[in-house]
Every structure is written in structure tokens, then in C-alpha cells.
């Protein structure tokens, strides 16, 4: 396990270096002056500009420049937003938890719905229910997410009036910002309307989370179906059947556990996909998350914000990736060997 951890950490550091290098080079690729793209101070005076040039070591070689940039990033200084002139790190700390909350809820929904359906399809392999589930899955990942979001608003918010269509929580509730994750903040607050706020927040999250969850859920259906078919064909299942175990015992005691392990490996990769879908969905549902903020910074040509947002978002995706790797390795001793290291 120790070698495994060391390998993951070195991979993490390497990838972070590549990502910072990418965001560093974006400053040169974007239009405008490099140091202003780095810092986001568009209204800087001559003396401030000289100071910035000094801080980012613009007069030295490119390696020194990168070093200076990296120092700034490591100190949590992503520069200022060109549009609002407030520090980007502060904006990100406020917005990122909302995205984390939304995408984790969506991931949970996708797994709870997708994995059992995939198992059912695998158990009924090549029968009608298998075909129905597979066709639904294909339809599910063909639907454009923005269209689905709009239809969901039209049906559930405007037509039936069941669920709110925009935002994180009704403005009536005043929740103090502690962690940024709405549900935890509500539970921590000592407001007398705690439970009303909680149910209001859950009503707000259901619609966007379900819209995001659809495409990953269909992928989980396919993954879990393939995993289950593979497990059911394994010889230990045949041995269990030969011992005279009932079908339910085989499925619940042996097959599901082994199939689940195979699926967990793919969660990290799927998460990257899910976060992109979440970015678009945040725009539609006016969810105050980092995806909507990033897309708005593109409209406003806020290059410093684009860099910071990209860096934080891909860092977040990568951390989830590594976390699932760890969970997988903890559950499956076979994976701890060198085979899966890179």
C-alpha cells in the first residue's frame, strides 16, 4: 500500500505541474499583456505595473517566470478577476463547494439508479428487460443535456409547479457561510427554521441533480451490466452453484460484491464527464457554482478567471480520480501491485 500511495502522490505532483504549466502558458496565448493576464489588474498604474513585473519576474528567463507564477499559485494568489476586480481565490472558495455538492449528489443519484438497473439487465441477459434497459440507456446518453434541463423546467417547474427552477435555496432563508456546502451549513446553523430551509434546499437540488445524473447513470448501466456478465461467467460462480446455493444467495453474496469493485474503478473517469455536464446545467438552473462562473468569465473575456477556474476545476477532477483509485485499491488487493501504477 505504501508504494501504491507514493506512486499516486508522484503522479499527482506530475499532473499538477503539467496543469500549472498549461495555465501559465494560457497567459501567453490569450490576447493582451502577459503580466496583466497573470494578475488580472487591468487598471494598474505604471508603478503598479512595474511592481507586478517585479513580482512575476517578467524580465528574467521563462523558467524564472514559471517559478514566480508557481509561487503565486502555491500561496493561493490566483490574481484578480478582470471583471469584478476581486481576488479569484475568494470567489472560487465561495463557488466551488456549490459545484462539489451538486456533482456529488448527481453522482450518488446516477449510481443508485444506474448500477441496479445494469445488474438487472445482466441477470436477464438477452431477454426483453435487458433490451428495454439498453435501449433506454442509449436514448439517455443521446439527449443533449441543455435540452433535457429546459424540458425538466417546463414540465416540473412551470407545468406542474412541483419544484423550483433556479438557484440553490429560496432567498427567504439566511444561511451563514461556513463550509459552502449548503446542507452542512444548514445543519450547523442555529436558525429556528432549520428544517424548512433543509427541505427547501433539497427541493432546489433535485431537478438539476437529476438532469446531470441521467447521462452518467446510463454509462453506469452499461458498466455494471458488462461487469456483472463477466462475473456471472466466472468459475467461482459456477462452483457456488454446484454447491447448491440458491440464485439469490449467489447474486447477493458473491456476484454483486465482485461486480461493484469493477465499477468503482470507472467512477473517477466518469466524474470528469459529470463535471462538464454540471457546468452546462449550472448555467440553465442558475446554480451559483464554478461552472457557471467559468462560462460567464468566457463571455466577459476575463482571462485571469478562466485560468484560475480551469486550474481549480481540473485539480478537483483529478483529486476525485485519485481518491477513487485509493478506494479501489483498498477494496481490491489485486490492484495494489505494480500493474496499475503508471
Amino acid at each position, binding site marked *: 500500500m505504501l508504494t501504491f500511495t507514493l506512486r499516486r502522490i508522484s503522479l499527482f505532483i506530475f499532473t499538477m505541474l503539467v496543469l500549472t504549466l498549461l495555465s501559465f502558458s*494560457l497567459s501567453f496565448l490569450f490576447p493582451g499583456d502577459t503580466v496583466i493576464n497573470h494578475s488580472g489588474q487591468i487598471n494598474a498604474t505604471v508603478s503598479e505595473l512595474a511592481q507586478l513585473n517585479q513580482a512575476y519576474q517578467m524580465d528574467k528567463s521563462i523558467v524564472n517566470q514559471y517559478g514566480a507564477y508557481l509561487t503565486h499559485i502555491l500561496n493561493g494568489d490566483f490574481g484578480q478577476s478582470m471583471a469584478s476586480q476581486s481576488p479569484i481565490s475568494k470567489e472560487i472558495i465561495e463557488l466551488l463547494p456549490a459545484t462539489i455538492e451538486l456533482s456529488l449528489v448527481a453522482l450518488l443519484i446516477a449510481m443508485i439508479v444506474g448500477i441496479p438497473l445494469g445488474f438487472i439487465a445482466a441477470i436477464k441477459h438477452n431477454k426483453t428487460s435487458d433490451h428495454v434497459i439498453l435501449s433506454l440507456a442509449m436514448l439517455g446518453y*443521446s439527449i*443533449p443535456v441543455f435540452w433535457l434541463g429546459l424540458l425538466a423546467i*417546463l414540465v416540473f417547474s412551470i407545468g406542474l409547479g412541483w419544484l423550483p427552477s433556479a438557484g440553490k435555496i429560496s432567498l427567504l432563508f439566511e444561511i451563514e457561510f461556513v463550509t459552502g456546502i449548503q446542507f452542512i451549513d444548514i445543519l450547523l446553523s442555529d436558525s429556528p427554521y432549520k428544517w424548512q430551509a433543509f427541505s427547501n434546499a433539497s427541493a432546489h437540488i433535485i431537478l438539476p441533480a437529476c438532469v446531470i445524473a441521467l447521462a452518467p447513470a446510463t454509462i453506469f448501466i452499461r458498466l455494471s451490466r458488462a461487469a456483472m456478465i463477466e462475473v456471472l461467467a466466472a468459475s467461482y460462480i459456477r462452483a457456488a452453484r454446484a454447491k447448491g446455493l440458491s440464485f439469490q444467495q449467489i447474486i447477493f453474496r458473491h456476484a454483486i460484491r465482485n461486480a461493484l469493485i469493477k465499477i468503482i474503478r470507472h467512477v473517477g473517469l466518469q466524474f470528469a464527464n459529470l463535471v462538464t455536464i454540471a457546468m452546462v446545467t449550472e448555467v440553465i438552473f442558475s446554480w451559483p457554482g464554478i461552472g457557471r462562473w467559468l462560462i460567464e468569465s468566457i463571455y466577459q473575456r476575463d482571462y485571469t478567471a478562466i485560468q484560475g477556474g480551469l486550474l481549480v476545476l481540473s485539480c478537483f477532477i483529478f483529486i476525485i480520480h485519485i481518491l477513487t483509485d485509493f478506494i479501489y485499491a483498498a477494496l481490491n488487493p489485486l490492484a495494489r501491485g505494480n500493474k496499475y501504477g503508471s
Partner: protein
Amino acid sequence: MAREKIYLEEVFPSPFMQLWRIFRKTPVAMVGFCCFILLILLAIFAPIISPYSPVDGNLDMILLPPAWHVDGNVSYLLGTDELGRDMLSRLMYGTSLTFGLSFIVVFFSLVIGVVIGSLSALTRGIKSSFLNHFLDVVLSIPSLLLAIIIVAILGPGISNTVWAIAIVFIPQFIHITRYAVKEEFRKDYVLASRLDGASNFRILYYSVFPNIVERLMSQATLAQSAAILDIATLGFLGLGAQIPLPEWGAILANGLERFYIAPWTVYLPGLAILFAVVATNLVGEGIRHALKLRKEN
């Protein structure tokens, strides 16, 4: 009666023909394939067959519902939008933008990806290992996110979207070609032609490519369905096709303000995207299914 063939000739169909024979027998895949062909024809001939211009509006016919509605007009089969532009014509022109461009994008990245991938499959050592790691990092970033970043660098617009998506899709073609070529090079028939004195490029062209073409096609259909969704999403976000281009995602975004009074301006382009993606996915599923069956035989 003239007999052209005197001897009974044994014909071995090429791997591609074998695949086509299996593919033809799956009805669902054939339906998808026909829809796919229809979309291609529509993309090419949209300017000829569309009844009205996609950008010029008829101000007497604003927000006309589709023809099956009580207030509909049969000369505007799918209704009109807020400027009196015919939805049917806009959707037809949109086929060549959303679907046609996605086809071109995928073809372009396929060609570049295959060239780089097969060259890299022939190299060994540090260059190859570096490429491998680099590809792994690039492939772990979602395609839409990367496309959004590239559009942010290049600036919004349909041509920049096309470039961005083409660049985003190249790595996955490099990856799959590399693996497929490496796998084929280990097989005995390659060794046989190498013993005949064939050069690497000759082997690649005459022996390896005919055997991996269907795997590349299967990847291409996957990439195309993603490309359609990406072009439409970027159009919807206002980063891709700009007003008044009739790109499906842009039409949908355009109808957003009148979503409640004129829902057809939103659900029709959405259905068009769904139709195109389902058709592409059906073809892809058909190819993968046929590949599996051919392997089992």
C-alpha cells in the same frame, strides 16, 4: 449460355465485407444507418430542397405553430420563429452546420490521429513513453471542457468551434490507432509479410489498415455523437455559432426567451439533435455488435 466462370472460385470476403454482411442482418442498426445516410444527404442538399431561406423572415407570419396545430399553416410545416423564419428550413440548414460539420471534424481528426498514431506505433523508447503519458493526461480532461478553453483562447464563432473540437478529438484517435497497430504488429501474418521483405509502411498500408479500419470507424461514430453534442452545446452557450446562423444549439438558445409561448422553437431543434445523435449511436452500436459476432465466429 455463356459461362464466365468455369472454375469454382473460392472468394474470401475482406474483413470489412464480412463486417458489412453481419451489420446488414441487424435491423435496428440498418434503421440507424438509413437515418445516418438521410442526414448526410440532407446536409448536402439542404440549400436545394429547403422551402424558404433560413435567415430571411416573413414578418406576416410570426410565431406560427406547427401545421398540426389548430392555428398552424401548412405552408410552414414546422411553424415559424419570432422573426417569421421557417423552422423547417432552419432545421434543414442546421443539419449541414451541426451534423455536417461534426462529420467533417471527425473525419479531419481521424486522418490526423491515424497518421500520428501509426507513426508513433512504429517508434519505441522514450519518445513513445512520453507520448503515452501526455495522451493519458489529455484524455482525462473532458472533451467539452477542453473545447471551451480552446474557444476561450480563439474567441467565439463557428469556425473556432470546429477547430477546437477537431483538436480535442485528435488524441483519442492517436490513442486507439496506436494500440490497434501495435496489437496487429504482434500477429503472425505481419511477420509473414515481413519475411517476404515488406517495409514497415507497406505492412501498415496493405496488411494492418484493412484489419483495423472497422475499429477506427466504431471510435469515429462515438466521437461523432460527442461532436454533435459538443457543437450544439457550444452553440447553445453562445460560444459557437453566432446569430443568425441556423445551428441547432443556437436555434434552441434563440427560442429560449419565448419558451413558454412558443415551445416548438425549443423542442424541435432539441429533437433534431436527439435524432442525429441516436442515428449515429445506432450505427456505432451496430458496428460494435458486428465486430463482436465476427470475433466469435
